[in-house]
Protein backbone atom coordinates (compact mmCIF):
# COMPACT_ATOMS: atom_id res chain seq x y z
CA UNK A 1 0.00 0.00 0.00
CA UNK A 2 1.33 3.39 -0.99
CA UNK A 3 0.45 5.19 2.31
CA UNK A 4 2.53 2.67 4.27
CA UNK A 5 5.37 2.95 1.79
CA UNK A 6 5.38 6.75 2.09
CA UNK A 7 5.23 6.49 5.88
CA UNK A 8 8.31 4.31 5.79
CA UNK A 9 10.06 6.59 3.30
CA UNK A 10 9.62 9.70 5.44
CA UNK A 11 10.16 7.80 8.67
CA UNK A 12 7.01 9.30 10.15
CA UNK A 13 3.54 7.79 9.89
CA UNK A 14 1.80 11.14 10.21
CA UNK A 15 3.72 12.91 7.42
CA UNK A 16 3.55 9.87 5.15
CA UNK A 17 -0.21 9.53 5.46
CA UNK A 18 -0.66 13.27 5.03
CA UNK A 19 1.22 13.19 1.72
CA UNK A 20 -0.67 10.08 0.63
CA UNK A 21 -3.94 11.88 1.39
CA UNK A 22 -2.92 14.86 -0.75
CA UNK A 23 -1.97 12.69 -3.73
CA UNK A 24 -5.39 12.47 -5.44
CA UNK A 25 -5.81 16.24 -5.23
CA UNK A 26 -2.71 17.04 -7.25
CA UNK A 27 -2.45 13.96 -9.40
CA UNK A 28 -6.08 13.54 -10.33
CA UNK A 29 -8.71 16.10 -9.25
CA UNK A 30 -7.01 19.20 -10.66
CA UNK A 31 -6.06 17.84 -14.12
CA UNK A 32 -9.31 15.92 -14.32
CA UNK A 33 -11.41 19.02 -13.53
CA UNK A 34 -9.49 21.06 -16.14
CA UNK A 35 -10.15 18.53 -18.87
CA UNK A 36 -13.68 17.73 -17.71
CA UNK A 37 -14.62 21.36 -18.31
CA UNK A 38 -13.02 21.15 -21.75
CA UNK A 39 -14.80 17.85 -22.47
CA UNK A 40 -18.11 19.30 -21.36
CA UNK A 41 -17.73 22.17 -23.84
CA UNK A 42 -16.64 19.85 -26.61
CA UNK A 43 -19.54 17.45 -25.93
CA UNK A 44 -22.05 20.28 -25.92
CA UNK A 45 -20.55 21.62 -29.15
CA UNK A 46 -20.76 18.19 -30.75
CA UNK A 47 -24.38 17.80 -29.66
CA UNK A 48 -25.31 21.22 -31.03
CA UNK A 49 -23.34 20.79 -34.25
CA UNK A 50 -20.75 23.43 -33.38
CA UNK A 51 -16.96 23.20 -33.18
CA UNK A 52 -16.46 24.35 -29.59
CA UNK A 53 -13.26 25.82 -28.15
CA UNK A 54 -10.56 25.63 -30.83
CA UNK A 55 -8.25 28.66 -30.45
CA UNK A 56 -5.94 28.06 -27.46
CA UNK A 57 -3.52 25.28 -28.30
CA UNK A 58 -4.21 22.44 -30.74
CA UNK A 59 -7.97 21.79 -30.94
CA UNK A 60 -8.42 24.19 -28.01
CA UNK A 61 -6.78 21.80 -25.57
CA UNK A 62 -5.40 24.61 -23.40
CA UNK A 63 -8.67 26.55 -23.29
CA UNK A 64 -9.49 25.71 -19.65
CA UNK A 65 -5.95 26.49 -18.51
CA UNK A 66 -6.38 29.92 -20.05
CA UNK A 67 -9.74 30.21 -18.28
CA UNK A 68 -8.17 29.37 -14.92
CA UNK A 69 -5.42 31.95 -15.53
CA UNK A 70 -8.12 34.51 -16.25
CA UNK A 71 -10.03 33.59 -13.09
CA UNK A 72 -6.89 33.91 -10.95
CA UNK A 73 -6.28 37.43 -12.22
CA UNK A 74 -9.86 38.55 -11.59
CA UNK A 75 -10.71 40.81 -8.69
CA UNK A 76 -12.05 38.91 -5.71
CA UNK A 77 -15.27 40.79 -5.01
CA UNK A 78 -17.20 40.44 -1.77
CA UNK A 79 -20.59 42.19 -2.06
CA UNK A 80 -21.05 45.06 0.40
CA UNK A 81 -24.19 43.56 1.93
CA UNK A 82 -22.81 40.03 2.11
CA UNK A 83 -22.04 38.21 5.33
CA UNK A 84 -18.30 38.28 4.89
CA UNK A 85 -16.98 35.33 6.94
CA UNK A 86 -19.61 32.94 5.65
CA UNK A 87 -19.23 34.22 2.11
CA UNK A 88 -15.49 33.57 2.15
CA UNK A 89 -15.80 30.19 3.86
CA UNK A 90 -18.58 28.64 1.75
CA UNK A 91 -16.58 27.52 -1.34
CA UNK A 92 -13.98 25.83 0.84
CA UNK A 93 -16.64 24.04 2.89
CA UNK A 94 -18.20 22.66 -0.29
CA UNK A 95 -14.83 21.59 -1.64
CA UNK A 96 -13.89 19.99 1.70
CA UNK A 97 -16.94 17.75 1.44
CA UNK A 98 -15.92 16.66 -2.04
CA UNK A 99 -12.27 16.15 -1.23
CA UNK A 100 -13.02 14.19 1.95
CA UNK A 101 -14.91 11.67 -0.18
CA UNK A 102 -11.75 10.94 -2.20
CA UNK A 103 -10.11 9.55 0.94
CA UNK A 104 -12.09 6.31 0.75
CA UNK A 105 -12.00 5.78 -3.03
CA UNK A 106 -9.95 2.72 -4.04
CA UNK A 107 -7.86 3.92 -6.98
CA UNK A 108 -6.02 0.64 -7.19
CA UNK A 109 -5.25 -2.38 -5.05
CA UNK A 110 -2.21 -0.57 -3.66
CA UNK A 111 -3.62 2.92 -3.32
CA UNK A 112 -6.59 3.82 -1.17
CA UNK A 113 -6.37 6.88 1.04
CA UNK A 114 -7.95 5.16 4.00
CA UNK A 115 -9.01 1.54 3.87
CA UNK A 116 -11.94 1.90 6.27
CA UNK A 117 -14.63 -0.72 6.73
CA UNK A 118 -17.41 1.82 6.25
CA UNK A 119 -16.21 3.16 2.86
CA UNK A 120 -19.54 3.60 1.07
CA UNK A 121 -21.31 4.84 4.14
CA UNK A 122 -18.54 7.35 4.85
CA UNK A 123 -18.58 8.73 1.32
CA UNK A 124 -22.34 9.24 1.42
CA UNK A 125 -21.99 11.01 4.78
CA UNK A 126 -19.27 13.45 3.78
CA UNK A 127 -20.76 14.24 0.41
CA UNK A 128 -24.07 15.09 2.07
CA UNK A 129 -22.10 17.62 4.08
CA UNK A 130 -21.59 19.88 1.05
CA UNK A 131 -25.27 20.86 1.44
CA UNK A 132 -24.23 23.03 4.38
CA UNK A 133 -21.72 24.82 2.16
CA UNK A 134 -24.35 25.41 -0.52
CA UNK A 135 -26.73 26.92 2.04
CA UNK A 136 -23.93 29.11 3.39
CA UNK A 137 -23.06 30.33 -0.08
CA UNK A 138 -26.68 31.02 -0.96
CA UNK A 139 -27.46 32.84 2.26
CA UNK A 140 -24.24 34.82 2.63
CA UNK A 141 -24.49 36.35 -0.84
CA UNK A 142 -27.59 38.25 0.31
CA UNK A 143 -29.14 37.92 -3.11
CA UNK A 144 -32.58 36.51 -3.73
CA UNK A 145 -31.47 34.35 -6.64
CA UNK A 146 -28.68 32.82 -4.57
CA UNK A 147 -31.08 32.04 -1.75
CA UNK A 148 -33.63 30.51 -4.12
CA UNK A 149 -30.92 28.39 -5.69
CA UNK A 150 -29.63 27.23 -2.32
CA UNK A 151 -33.12 26.38 -1.05
CA UNK A 152 -33.92 24.39 -4.16
CA UNK A 153 -30.58 22.66 -4.04
CA UNK A 154 -30.99 21.60 -0.43
CA UNK A 155 -34.55 20.35 -0.91
CA UNK A 156 -33.32 18.37 -3.89
CA UNK A 157 -30.19 16.89 -2.35
CA UNK A 158 -31.87 15.92 0.92
CA UNK A 159 -34.75 14.23 -0.94
CA UNK A 160 -32.61 12.36 -3.43
CA UNK A 161 -30.36 11.01 -0.72
CA UNK A 162 -33.17 8.61 0.20
CA UNK A 163 -33.35 6.63 -3.08
CA UNK A 164 -29.56 6.79 -3.49
CA UNK A 165 -28.97 5.25 -0.09
CA UNK A 166 -31.72 2.66 -0.61
CA UNK A 167 -30.19 1.59 -3.92
CA UNK A 168 -26.77 1.28 -2.30
CA UNK A 169 -28.19 -0.63 0.66
CA UNK A 170 -29.88 -3.11 -1.67
CA UNK A 171 -26.59 -3.68 -3.51
CA UNK A 172 -24.61 -3.93 -0.26
CA UNK A 173 -27.06 -6.54 1.03
CA UNK A 174 -25.89 -8.91 -1.70
CA UNK A 175 -22.24 -7.91 -1.51
CA UNK A 176 -21.93 -8.20 2.24
CA UNK A 177 -19.27 -5.53 2.66
CA UNK A 178 -19.09 -1.75 2.89
CA UNK A 179 -15.37 -1.56 2.26
CA UNK A 180 -14.91 -0.30 -1.31
CA UNK A 181 -11.52 -1.96 -1.66
CA UNK A 182 -12.97 -5.34 -0.66
CA UNK A 183 -15.92 -4.87 -2.98
CA UNK A 184 -13.53 -4.18 -5.86
CA UNK A 185 -11.39 -7.16 -4.95
CA UNK A 186 -14.39 -9.50 -5.08
CA UNK A 187 -15.22 -8.73 -8.70
CA UNK A 188 -12.15 -10.44 -10.02
CA UNK A 189 -10.65 -10.34 -13.47
CA UNK A 190 -13.50 -10.58 -15.97
CA UNK A 191 -16.48 -8.34 -16.58
CA UNK A 192 -19.10 -11.03 -15.98
CA UNK A 193 -17.99 -10.96 -12.36
CA UNK A 194 -19.11 -7.35 -11.95
CA UNK A 195 -21.97 -6.91 -9.54
CA UNK A 196 -24.18 -5.42 -12.22
CA UNK A 197 -23.94 -8.80 -13.99
CA UNK A 198 -24.74 -10.70 -10.81
CA UNK A 199 -21.30 -10.67 -9.25
CA UNK A 200 -18.89 -13.54 -8.62
CA UNK A 201 -21.67 -15.86 -7.45
CA UNK A 202 -22.40 -18.99 -9.40
CA UNK A 203 -25.63 -20.70 -10.33
CA UNK A 204 -29.15 -19.49 -10.95
CA UNK A 205 -28.79 -16.73 -8.34
CA UNK A 206 -26.41 -14.87 -10.64
CA UNK A 207 -29.01 -14.63 -13.40
CA UNK A 208 -31.74 -13.68 -10.95
CA UNK A 209 -29.56 -10.87 -9.61
CA UNK A 210 -28.88 -9.19 -12.97
CA UNK A 211 -32.21 -7.35 -13.25
CA UNK A 212 -32.46 -6.07 -9.64
CA UNK A 213 -28.82 -4.97 -9.70
CA UNK A 214 -29.36 -3.08 -12.95
CA UNK A 215 -32.40 -1.38 -11.45
CA UNK A 216 -30.38 -0.51 -8.34
CA UNK A 217 -27.66 1.00 -10.53
CA UNK A 218 -30.16 3.04 -12.57
CA UNK A 219 -31.86 4.37 -9.43
CA UNK A 220 -28.51 5.24 -7.90
CA UNK A 221 -27.32 6.92 -11.10
CA UNK A 222 -30.46 9.08 -11.42
CA UNK A 223 -30.34 10.02 -7.74
CA UNK A 224 -26.64 10.82 -7.93
CA UNK A 225 -27.29 13.09 -10.91
CA UNK A 226 -29.67 15.01 -8.68
CA UNK A 227 -27.19 15.06 -5.83
CA UNK A 228 -24.49 16.72 -7.91
CA UNK A 229 -27.01 19.19 -9.39
CA UNK A 230 -26.62 18.11 -12.99
CA UNK A 231 -29.21 18.50 -15.71
CA UNK A 232 -32.02 17.27 -15.84
CA UNK A 233 -31.96 18.15 -12.14
CA UNK A 234 -30.09 21.45 -12.36
CA UNK A 235 -32.88 23.67 -11.02
CA UNK A 236 -30.57 25.00 -8.29
CA UNK A 237 -28.41 26.60 -10.96
CA UNK A 238 -30.96 27.01 -13.74
CA UNK A 239 -29.15 29.70 -15.72
CA UNK A 240 -32.32 30.81 -17.48
CA UNK A 241 -34.29 31.52 -14.31
CA UNK A 242 -31.88 32.05 -11.42
CA UNK A 243 -28.81 33.68 -13.07
CA UNK A 244 -26.43 31.08 -11.59
CA UNK A 245 -28.13 29.84 -8.45
CA UNK A 246 -26.17 29.73 -5.24
CA UNK A 247 -22.90 30.94 -6.76
CA UNK A 248 -24.33 34.05 -8.45
CA UNK A 249 -22.30 36.47 -6.33
CA UNK A 250 -18.95 34.73 -6.60
CA UNK A 251 -16.03 35.80 -8.76
CA UNK A 252 -12.46 34.78 -9.45
CA UNK A 253 -10.90 31.87 -7.63
CA UNK A 254 -13.92 31.27 -5.38
CA UNK A 255 -16.05 30.71 -8.45
CA UNK A 256 -13.42 28.28 -9.72
CA UNK A 257 -13.62 26.43 -6.40
CA UNK A 258 -17.32 25.82 -7.00
CA UNK A 259 -16.52 24.38 -10.38
CA UNK A 260 -13.78 22.20 -8.97
CA UNK A 261 -16.20 20.90 -6.32
CA UNK A 262 -18.93 20.25 -8.89
CA UNK A 263 -16.68 18.27 -11.21
CA UNK A 264 -15.05 16.52 -8.27
CA UNK A 265 -18.49 15.46 -7.04
CA UNK A 266 -19.37 14.16 -10.48
CA UNK A 267 -16.32 11.93 -10.34
CA UNK A 268 -17.03 10.79 -6.79
CA UNK A 269 -20.55 9.57 -7.56
CA UNK A 270 -19.30 7.90 -10.74
CA UNK A 271 -16.52 6.25 -8.76
CA UNK A 272 -19.02 4.88 -6.24
CA UNK A 273 -21.08 3.32 -9.04
CA UNK A 274 -17.90 2.01 -10.65
CA UNK A 275 -16.64 0.42 -7.44
CA UNK A 276 -19.97 -1.15 -6.52
CA UNK A 277 -21.44 -2.13 -9.87
CA UNK A 278 -18.67 -2.05 -12.47
CA UNK A 279 -15.80 -3.87 -10.87
CA UNK A 280 -13.87 -1.00 -9.30
CA UNK A 281 -10.23 -1.12 -10.32
CA UNK A 282 -10.55 -4.58 -11.87
CA UNK A 283 -9.84 -4.86 -15.55
CA UNK A 284 -12.75 -6.19 -17.64
CA UNK A 285 -10.57 -8.76 -19.44
CA UNK A 286 -7.51 -9.83 -17.50
CA UNK A 287 -4.28 -7.95 -16.91
CA UNK A 288 -1.52 -7.33 -19.41
CA UNK A 289 0.95 -7.48 -16.53
CA UNK A 290 -0.13 -11.03 -15.72
CA UNK A 291 0.33 -12.32 -19.25
CA UNK A 292 3.67 -10.51 -19.71
CA UNK A 293 4.84 -11.47 -16.24
CA UNK A 294 5.57 -7.88 -15.16
CA UNK A 295 4.13 -7.54 -11.68
CA UNK A 296 4.53 -3.77 -11.27
CA UNK A 297 2.34 -3.18 -14.32
CA UNK A 298 -0.79 -4.56 -12.63
CA UNK A 299 -1.41 -1.67 -10.16
CA UNK A 300 -0.81 0.83 -12.96
CA UNK A 301 -3.38 -0.94 -15.10
CA UNK A 302 -5.78 -0.95 -12.16
CA UNK A 303 -5.44 2.83 -11.75
CA UNK A 304 -6.03 3.22 -15.47
CA UNK A 305 -9.19 1.09 -15.45
CA UNK A 306 -10.61 2.82 -12.39
CA UNK A 307 -10.08 6.29 -13.82
CA UNK A 308 -11.22 5.19 -17.28
CA UNK A 309 -14.50 3.71 -16.04
CA UNK A 310 -15.11 6.69 -13.78
CA UNK A 311 -14.47 9.18 -16.57
CA UNK A 312 -16.75 7.20 -18.88
CA UNK A 313 -19.63 7.61 -16.43
CA UNK A 314 -18.80 11.31 -16.10
CA UNK A 315 -19.07 11.49 -19.87
CA UNK A 316 -22.52 9.86 -19.68
CA UNK A 317 -23.54 12.57 -17.22
CA UNK A 318 -22.40 15.25 -19.70
CA UNK A 319 -24.21 13.50 -22.52
CA UNK A 320 -27.43 13.52 -20.47
CA UNK A 321 -26.95 17.17 -19.66
CA UNK A 322 -27.02 18.21 -23.27
CA UNK A 323 -29.84 15.82 -24.21
CA UNK A 324 -32.55 16.22 -21.59
CA UNK A 325 -34.49 19.36 -20.67
CA UNK A 326 -34.70 20.60 -17.10
CA UNK A 327 -37.43 19.34 -14.77
CA UNK A 328 -39.79 21.65 -12.90
CA UNK A 329 -39.61 21.71 -9.10
CA UNK A 330 -42.83 19.76 -8.65
CA UNK A 331 -41.80 17.19 -11.27
CA UNK A 332 -38.50 16.82 -9.45
CA UNK A 333 -40.23 15.99 -6.17
CA UNK A 334 -42.66 13.67 -7.97
CA UNK A 335 -39.82 11.72 -9.54
CA UNK A 336 -38.11 11.31 -6.20
CA UNK A 337 -40.96 10.50 -3.84
CA UNK A 338 -43.51 8.85 -6.13
CA UNK A 339 -41.24 6.87 -8.44
CA UNK A 340 -37.64 6.40 -7.32
CA UNK A 341 -38.23 5.79 -3.61
CA UNK A 342 -41.03 3.19 -4.00
CA UNK A 343 -39.12 1.41 -6.77
CA UNK A 344 -36.01 1.39 -4.62
CA UNK A 345 -38.01 -0.18 -1.79
CA UNK A 346 -39.50 -2.84 -4.08
CA UNK A 347 -36.02 -3.54 -5.40
CA UNK A 348 -34.70 -3.83 -1.85
CA UNK A 349 -37.33 -6.43 -0.97
CA UNK A 350 -36.69 -8.28 -4.25
CA UNK A 351 -32.94 -8.48 -3.64
CA UNK A 352 -33.62 -9.52 -0.07
CA UNK A 353 -35.75 -12.44 -1.26
CA UNK A 354 -33.11 -13.49 -3.80
CA UNK A 355 -30.28 -13.39 -1.27
CA UNK A 356 -32.26 -15.60 1.13
CA UNK A 357 -31.85 -18.59 -1.17
Amino acid at each position, binding site marked *: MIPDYLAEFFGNK*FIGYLIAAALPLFLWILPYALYAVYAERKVSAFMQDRIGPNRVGPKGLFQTIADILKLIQKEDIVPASA*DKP*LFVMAPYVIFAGTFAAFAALPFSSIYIGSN*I*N*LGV*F*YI*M*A*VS*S*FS*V*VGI*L*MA*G*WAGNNKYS*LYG*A*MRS*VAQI*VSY*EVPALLAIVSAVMVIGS*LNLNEISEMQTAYFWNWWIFGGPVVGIKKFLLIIPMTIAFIIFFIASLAEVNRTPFDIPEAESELVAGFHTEYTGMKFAMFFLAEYGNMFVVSAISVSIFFGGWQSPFGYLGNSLGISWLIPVEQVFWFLFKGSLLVLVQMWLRWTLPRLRVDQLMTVCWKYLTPYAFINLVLIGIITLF
Partner: protein
Amino acid sequence: MTLEQITFIILALIGLTSALMLIIQKNPVYSVLLLILHFFALAGFYLLLNAQFIAVLQILVYAGAIMVLFVFVIMLLNLSNEEALKDPFNLRKIIASIFGVVLILQFGVFFFIKAKDDLNVTISPNSIEAGSIKKISEVLFSTYLIPFEVTSFILLVGIIAAIVLAKRKFE
Protein backbone atom coordinates in the same frame (compact mmCIF):
# COMPACT_ATOMS: atom_id res chain seq x y z
CA MET B 1 2.40 13.84 24.25
CA THR B 2 1.06 11.27 21.88
CA LEU B 3 -0.90 12.05 18.75
CA GLU B 4 -4.05 10.79 20.48
CA GLN B 5 -3.69 13.27 23.32
CA ILE B 6 -3.02 16.17 20.98
CA THR B 7 -6.10 15.25 18.95
CA PHE B 8 -8.16 15.03 22.12
CA ILE B 9 -7.08 18.47 23.29
CA ILE B 10 -7.72 20.09 19.90
CA LEU B 11 -11.15 18.46 19.62
CA ALA B 12 -12.03 19.44 23.19
CA LEU B 13 -11.08 23.05 22.47
CA ILE B 14 -13.14 23.10 19.27
CA GLY B 15 -16.11 21.49 21.02
CA LEU B 16 -16.06 23.81 24.03
CA THR B 17 -15.52 27.03 22.07
CA SER B 18 -18.20 26.19 19.54
CA ALA B 19 -20.70 25.26 22.26
CA LEU B 20 -19.97 28.43 24.21
CA MET B 21 -20.09 30.65 21.13
CA LEU B 22 -23.38 29.00 20.20
CA ILE B 23 -25.17 30.27 23.29
CA ILE B 24 -23.48 33.68 23.21
CA GLN B 25 -23.93 34.32 19.48
CA LYS B 26 -26.74 36.72 18.54
CA ASN B 27 -27.18 35.66 14.94
CA PRO B 28 -29.04 32.31 14.77
CA VAL B 29 -27.39 31.39 11.44
CA TYR B 30 -23.97 31.50 13.09
CA SER B 31 -25.31 29.48 16.00
CA VAL B 32 -26.44 26.70 13.70
CA LEU B 33 -23.12 26.59 11.86
CA LEU B 34 -21.27 26.49 15.20
CA LEU B 35 -23.47 23.60 16.26
CA ILE B 36 -22.47 21.75 13.08
CA LEU B 37 -18.82 22.37 13.98
CA HIS B 38 -19.55 21.04 17.46
CA PHE B 39 -21.02 17.86 15.97
CA PHE B 40 -17.92 17.39 13.87
CA ALA B 41 -15.82 17.61 17.01
CA LEU B 42 -18.06 14.97 18.58
CA ALA B 43 -17.61 12.75 15.53
CA GLY B 44 -13.87 13.14 16.11
CA PHE B 45 -14.29 11.98 19.71
CA TYR B 46 -16.24 8.96 18.56
CA LEU B 47 -13.38 8.08 16.22
CA LEU B 48 -10.93 8.41 19.11
CA LEU B 49 -13.17 6.00 21.03
CA ASN B 50 -13.05 3.53 18.11
CA ALA B 51 -16.78 3.92 17.46
CA GLN B 52 -16.50 4.26 13.67
CA PHE B 53 -20.10 3.51 12.88
CA ILE B 54 -21.47 6.08 15.32
CA ALA B 55 -18.98 8.67 14.07
CA VAL B 56 -20.13 8.32 10.46
CA LEU B 57 -23.76 8.21 11.58
CA GLN B 58 -23.19 11.43 13.51
CA ILE B 59 -22.04 13.21 10.34
CA LEU B 60 -24.74 11.64 8.16
CA VAL B 61 -27.66 12.23 10.51
CA TYR B 62 -26.73 15.39 12.36
CA ALA B 63 -24.53 17.43 10.05
CA GLY B 64 -26.16 16.13 6.87
CA ALA B 65 -29.84 16.01 7.76
CA ILE B 66 -30.97 17.48 11.07
CA MET B 67 -28.79 20.57 10.99
CA VAL B 68 -29.67 21.22 7.35
CA LEU B 69 -33.30 21.28 8.49
CA PHE B 70 -32.36 23.86 11.13
CA VAL B 71 -30.46 26.05 8.68
CA PHE B 72 -33.31 25.72 6.23
CA VAL B 73 -35.94 26.84 8.75
CA ILE B 74 -33.84 29.75 9.99
CA MET B 75 -33.26 31.00 6.47
CA LEU B 76 -36.93 30.45 5.60
CA LEU B 77 -38.13 32.48 8.57
CA ASN B 78 -35.54 35.18 7.84
CA LEU B 79 -35.09 36.24 11.45
CA SER B 80 -33.30 39.41 12.25
CA ASN B 81 -30.78 39.37 15.09
CA GLU B 82 -32.68 38.83 18.28
CA GLU B 83 -32.39 41.23 21.19
CA ALA B 84 -32.03 38.44 23.74
CA LEU B 85 -28.89 39.80 25.31
CA LYS B 86 -30.02 43.40 25.65
CA ASP B 87 -31.48 43.09 29.15
CA PRO B 88 -29.10 40.74 30.88
CA PHE B 89 -30.27 41.16 34.47
CA ASN B 90 -33.82 40.13 34.91
CA LEU B 91 -34.86 37.66 37.58
CA ARG B 92 -34.97 34.70 35.18
CA LYS B 93 -31.41 35.15 34.08
CA ILE B 94 -30.15 35.41 37.64
CA ILE B 95 -31.94 32.19 38.58
CA ALA B 96 -30.65 30.53 35.43
CA SER B 97 -27.06 31.51 36.15
CA ILE B 98 -27.33 30.35 39.77
CA PHE B 99 -28.71 27.04 38.57
CA GLY B 100 -25.96 26.68 35.97
CA VAL B 101 -23.20 27.50 38.46
CA VAL B 102 -24.63 25.01 40.98
CA LEU B 103 -24.72 22.33 38.30
CA ILE B 104 -21.12 22.98 37.29
CA LEU B 105 -20.07 22.95 40.97
CA GLN B 106 -21.81 19.62 41.45
CA PHE B 107 -19.99 18.15 38.49
CA GLY B 108 -16.75 19.62 39.82
CA VAL B 109 -17.30 18.15 43.27
CA PHE B 110 -18.10 14.78 41.77
CA PHE B 111 -15.17 14.58 39.39
CA PHE B 112 -12.41 16.27 41.37
CA ILE B 113 -13.25 15.39 44.97
CA LYS B 114 -15.53 12.36 45.23
CA ALA B 115 -14.38 10.32 42.23
CA LYS B 116 -10.85 11.70 42.29
CA ASP B 117 -9.03 8.42 41.93
CA ASP B 118 -11.74 6.33 40.31
CA LEU B 119 -12.65 6.38 36.63
CA ASN B 120 -9.02 6.32 35.55
CA VAL B 121 -9.62 3.19 33.48
CA THR B 122 -8.15 3.06 30.02
CA ILE B 123 -9.92 2.08 26.84
CA SER B 124 -10.92 -1.56 26.52
CA PRO B 125 -9.12 -3.68 23.90
CA ASN B 126 -12.55 -4.88 22.76
CA SER B 127 -13.56 -1.36 21.75
CA ILE B 128 -12.55 -1.76 18.09
CA GLU B 129 -14.75 -4.80 17.75
CA ALA B 130 -17.55 -3.22 19.78
CA GLY B 131 -17.66 -0.21 17.46
CA SER B 132 -17.61 -2.15 14.22
CA ILE B 133 -20.74 -2.19 12.10
CA LYS B 134 -20.81 -5.99 12.22
CA LYS B 135 -21.00 -6.23 15.99
CA ILE B 136 -23.48 -3.36 16.24
CA SER B 137 -25.82 -4.88 13.69
CA GLU B 138 -25.62 -8.26 15.40
CA VAL B 139 -26.71 -6.78 18.70
CA LEU B 140 -29.21 -4.41 17.11
CA PHE B 141 -31.05 -7.11 15.21
CA SER B 142 -31.11 -9.65 18.01
CA THR B 143 -31.21 -8.18 21.52
CA TYR B 144 -32.64 -4.81 20.57
CA LEU B 145 -34.94 -5.88 17.76
CA ILE B 146 -38.17 -4.63 19.31
CA PRO B 147 -36.81 -1.18 20.26
CA PHE B 148 -35.50 -0.97 16.70
CA GLU B 149 -38.97 -1.61 15.28
CA VAL B 150 -40.45 0.94 17.69
CA THR B 151 -37.93 3.48 16.37
CA SER B 152 -39.37 3.13 12.89
CA PHE B 153 -42.79 3.83 14.37
CA ILE B 154 -41.47 6.96 16.09
CA LEU B 155 -40.06 8.19 12.79
CA LEU B 156 -43.40 7.57 11.09
CA VAL B 157 -45.18 9.57 13.80
CA GLY B 158 -42.59 12.32 13.33
CA ILE B 159 -43.22 12.48 9.57
CA ILE B 160 -47.01 12.64 9.97
CA ALA B 161 -46.84 15.23 12.75
CA ALA B 162 -44.47 17.43 10.76
CA ILE B 163 -46.75 17.36 7.71
CA VAL B 164 -49.88 18.08 9.75
CA LEU B 165 -48.25 20.97 11.60
CA ALA B 166 -46.41 22.62 8.75
CA LYS B 167 -49.04 22.33 6.04
CA ARG B 168 -51.05 25.49 5.85
CA LYS B 169 -54.53 24.12 5.26
CA PHE B 170 -56.11 20.87 4.26
CA GLU B 171 -58.61 21.42 1.47
